[in-house]
């Protein structure tokens, strides 16, 4: 299983902050395309963290990964 986390505007757009999906040996980039299609969201400027560390688009998912979609941050 893979855990997906959505925050802020994305959470509202997806309608859910957290969900689980079946593990597939795909890259983050591929996962982003799937999400975009499924939820009609634009992830172009969205960073992705794998297990709480920012990850490159070409990183491949591992079983048990927690994948967070991080829209441009606005803390401070």
């Amino acid at each position, binding site marked *: 299983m893979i855990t997906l986390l959505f925050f802020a505007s994305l959470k509202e757009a997806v309608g859910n902050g957290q969900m689980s999906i079946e593990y597939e040996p795909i890259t983050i980039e591929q996962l982003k395309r799937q999400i975009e299609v499924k939820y009609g969201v634009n992830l172009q400027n969205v960073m992705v963290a794998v297990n709480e560390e*920012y990850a490159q688009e070409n990183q491949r998912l591992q079983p048990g990964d927690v994948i967070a979609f991080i829209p*441009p941050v*606005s803390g*401070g």
Partner: protein
Amino acid sequence: MNETLFMVTDQPILIEDVVRKVVRPEAGAVAVFVGTVREFTNGKRTLFLQYEAYTTMAEKMLERIAQEIKERWPEAKTAITHRIGKLDISDVAVVIAVSTPHRKDAYEANQYAIERIKQIVPIWKKEYWEDGTQWVGNQLETKEYPDGKPKEEDLA
């Protein structure tokens, strides 16, 4: 040390507490940044804000910023607390305290910290106006990111 130097909390922040974490005999200067909720941004009146965080990762990123500071200013000690939840005008959203033996380093390291917070720490604010709401994207004052946030229509 049992103190938590890097915290995301839904409670009001006591500036004194954050500063006390970095005061030490070898440091003579503490530069502190206090970010408060501003009422007007670009002429538009904010009623209140709602902050949301990916808390566990945000605290990790705050710690990473402190490590980056340590690499650039080896004698610096940093503590950062960021508040989340509903914040009213003038409420304290973030406190950054950096102590160093000499003050110039403290100011520089502190500015570095706030810039980095606005780049890498997964915290978001939603503005509540009289006529609507919006999640705010990248707010780095040094640089404009017109495309730095998902557009409302993309998220509908």
